[in-house]
């Protein structure tokens, strides 16, 4: 049996029952990491020793203990903006080079408590600011489906690791699409939960009112299993919400007869690559053939979403990144006085895209501009939220393309920030509205994956996963890149 073939639920069950040892699973994945990393570059840091140690712990546990671990022996990759005690965490930035956190994120604690094995930390755009992972201060990551193309971003490392078989599941973070867009580009499932569904404690903040941690996985089932472990209120995150966590995986195959799928006009047509649009529309037609109702709707404030997002997110980022001052941790450049210390440290430590957003955000919050930019953006944000509220009076979920285009070639957009920002055009609205959204592969065009996005009302992850499962069921998936290599 090739252990890489097993889904998370099946692998965990086998480990629990002692049919497979966690050590075997870990060795299989470490081997795959070694095979794929030279061409993919998904990881910033591997922790082989730590992974073997965790496997040992699981294998030595009694069956009584093991049977309580839903992710027993499941190898997980963690985006490098999520902290883990004792393991260097950089958020893809030079300014945090060498920083070893003295504490773990709540999601990491939950993973470990569920028996998961953390393989390492994955690459990302610096501080999660970017849509291609090209803005990592360390190295780019390549799309496993076509190494000439980007994996998307900012969770590009996590999405690529899952597609390359170098992790079974992964954690990403999503501020404007950073889980869903790379999930679409890499042909995997990516879910951004409702704001407050998953604790942000230990997630290095980009834009606090938009950030959420979520799962990336090969299948909807694996994503459901992972979300079950991650979700739930956390006393350390005052914005986490005390809502019961349903058994997502158990509910997956409950049918959704007559599911009303809203199809918003604003997400189709202009600005969307026709190949992507055709692939998404074909998938929707297959769903309709299976009994779903396609309902044309309008989300009229969608055209303002990118502008709104690029006022609010940089404003919050400019504040969240003030702590990287060279005083207490990370990079410190030599300087003769305090101002110079700040200036030289931040000039050397931050990359061009991060600086661009800090400048933009600082300006947006400045005296005399706050009302015109930040406050107005917050008002539009409310309108966007209301668009969805009105839509959900008539439909159960909203379906859109996840991305306006297919994965683009490396280097083709890194000098054109506005064009890069448009990669988020389909995904930012759900962050602005705090709504859950999932990207699921719905077809392949020119050998590259296309993602379909489903957006639901707050705390409707259960429904979204079931609907995504329907998409999965009517989508023919080619062999994974790692299966092809093997062949």
């Amino acid at each position, binding site marked *: 049996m090739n252990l890489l073939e097993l889904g998370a639920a099946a692998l965990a069950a086998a480990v629990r029952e002692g049919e497979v040892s966690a050590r075997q699973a870990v060795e299989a994945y470490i081997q795959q990491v070694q095979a794929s990393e030279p061409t993919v570059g998904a990881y910033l840091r591997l922790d082989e020793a730590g992974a073997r140690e965790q496997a040992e712990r699981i294998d030595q546990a009694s069956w009584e203990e093991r049977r309580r671990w839903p992710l027993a022996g499941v190898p997980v990759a963690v985006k490098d*903006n*999520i*902290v883990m005690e004792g393991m260097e*965490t950089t*958020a893809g930035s030079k300014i*945090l080079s060498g*920083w070893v*956190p*003295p*504490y773990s*994120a709540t999601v990491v604690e939950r993973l470990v408590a569920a028996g998961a094995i953390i393989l390492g930390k994955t690459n990302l755009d610096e501080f999660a600011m970017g849509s291609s992972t090209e803005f990592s201060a360390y190295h780019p990551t390549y799309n496993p489906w076509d190494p000439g193309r980007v994996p998307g971003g900012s969770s590009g490392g996590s999405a690529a690791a899952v597609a390359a078989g170098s992790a079974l599941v992964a954690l990403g973070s999503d501020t404007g699409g950073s889980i869903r867009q790379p999930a679409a580009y890499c042909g995997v499932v990516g879910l951004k939960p409702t704001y407050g569904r998953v604790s*942000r*404690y*230990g*997630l*290095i*903040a980009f*834009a*606090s*009112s938009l950030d959420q941690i979520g799962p990336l996985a090969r299948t909807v089932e694996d994503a459901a299993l992972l979300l079950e472990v991650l979700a739930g209120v956390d*006393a*350390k*995150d*005052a*914005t986490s919400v005390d809502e019961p966590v349903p058994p997502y995986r158990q509910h997956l195959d409950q049918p959704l007869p007559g599911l009303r799928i809203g199809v918003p006009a604003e997400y189709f047509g202009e600005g969307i690559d026709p190949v992507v649009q055709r692939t998404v529309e074909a998938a929707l037609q297959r769903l309709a053939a299976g009994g779903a109702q396609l309902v044309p709707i309008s989300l009229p404030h969608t055209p303002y979403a990118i502008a709104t997002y690029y006022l609010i997110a940089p*404003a*919050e980022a*400019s*504040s969240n*990144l*003030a*702590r990287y*001052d060279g*005083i*207490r*941790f990370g990079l410190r450049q030599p300087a003769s*006085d*305090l101002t110079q210390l*700040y200036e030289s440290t931040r000039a050397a430590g931050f990359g061009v895209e991060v600086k661009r957003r800090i400048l933009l955000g*600082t300006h947006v*919050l*400045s*005296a005399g501009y*706050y009302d015109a930019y*930040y406050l107005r953006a917050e008002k539009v944000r409310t309108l966007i939220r209301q668009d969805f509220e009105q839509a959900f009076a008539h439909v159960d979920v909203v379906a859109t393309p996840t991305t306006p285009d297919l994965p683009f070639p490396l280097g083709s957009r890194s000098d054109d920030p506005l064009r890069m920002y448009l990669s988020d055009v389909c995904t930012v609205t759900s962050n602005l509205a705090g709504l859950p959204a999932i990207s699921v592969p719905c077809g392949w065009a020119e050998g590259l994956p296309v993602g379909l996005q489903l957006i639901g009302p707050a705390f409707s992850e259960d429904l979204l996963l079931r609907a995504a499962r329907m998409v999965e069921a009517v989508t023919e998936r080619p062999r994974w890149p790692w299966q092809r290599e093997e062949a």
Partner: protein
Amino acid sequence: MAAKAVGYDVIIGLEVHVELKTRTKLFCGCENRFGAPPNSLTCPVCLGLPGVLPVLNQEAVAKAARAGLALGCTVREISKFDRKQYFYPDLPKGYQISQYDQPLCEHGQLAIYDGRGNYVKTVRIRRIHLEEDAGKLNHLGQRLSDAAGSLVDLNRAGVPLIEIVSEPDLSSGEEARWYLNALRTVLSYLDISDLRMEEGSMRCDANVSLRPHGWAGSLGDLPRVEIKNLNSLRNVERAIDYEVERQATRLAQGLKIELETRGFDDVSGRTYSQRSKEEAHDYRYFPEPDLPPLRLEAAQIAAWAKALPPLPDRVREELKAAGLEAKDAEILVQDPSAVAYFRAAWEAYGKAVPVANWMLSDLARLLNAAKRGYGDAPVPPAELAALLTQIDRGVLSGRMAKEVLEAMFERGESAEAAIRRLGVSQISDEGRIRQEVEAVIGEHAKVVEDFRAGKEKALAFLVGQVMKRTRGQANPEVVNRLLRELLSEPVRPSGS
């Protein structure tokens, strides 16, 4: 002496920061304590490490709200937190979590009194908000600019503060001192802060401007000077007086007043420019996304209001109604432990004025010398009452009672035990005293004659003689009365 500015009204508003005494810091579980080794009371949250989030301390909310209620404020059912942003090494996150446009408490007032307990005016309180304190820098050298280095201590970072902002209703340094004193008194009744200006648990900034008589514009248009970090009541008064005079002098010379931030030099007694308008920070306030709005139930606010202790204004009236002089009432009112002591002793003894008199003279002197407060006085209120009762019963003279009180204070004895041990008790037995009086009259015929000739002073001598014969224990009232009685009897012919 209050500074004068002829042709102008002096407009002063104060911003007072008070550190709340809570078990833990405002947004993390670290202990809130003064004087621990540097950085020993820190965690990822108050160090501002990447990825951490704040969680609001409900004890701090309750204490801030109680401060607001005690100062007559409205406590908002919904308030929110904002980030105030600037770079400084003692500010780990690069921003301070504070409250900007929706503070916890608004629209209060505080009556102020002069040193003799006379009402002066009522000052409006604009707002009270909750925020976190910054850490401390220890410069290796004189100033940051020429220091060989600076050490950051973040024990204080994240300690809960309330900032109490007054309306510009004060008009002299003296009034500012009275205001601070009144504020400190009210807060001391709530036991929510150490209120020590020298340790920084209470800090004051003063805004000072001069308004020309007949000024029609708004106060906001007047050039305002902020004096930062005044660390004692005396310095608040000195700094304001200096600043009023400085501004008046400039205006008299036809010079303009610049909007700026100034510091105060304790030694020279002068204010000096720290930051001009051009260098002023743009704090770029925006809503703190990591904390949901703070919601309080109306019932909770009402319960806090109901549970407030009797406050200084009420206590002051009560004490005056009990017959205390305004000045004495004021001294007691300023110290809640003195008020508690007074109440207990008053209840045990029954009369208010003698309790106050003894507290404010002899007991206060003993406490001062021992550097103790009424809260830990070695003589409990019930024993002071017992002592005063012995005076009333004639067992002790006033002078004896002082001696007994000292013994009680030193040894922690009860009044009864001290009286017994010292063997001091007054002789009030008339028969016994009459014998001594008669003997003295017999021995001092010349003095007796003087008295009878109208020399009142002679009586004091005779009283002294009786006291001497009784080793000071005769009841002076009885001695006086008997002497007058016996001396007014007709002179019996000698030898009859």
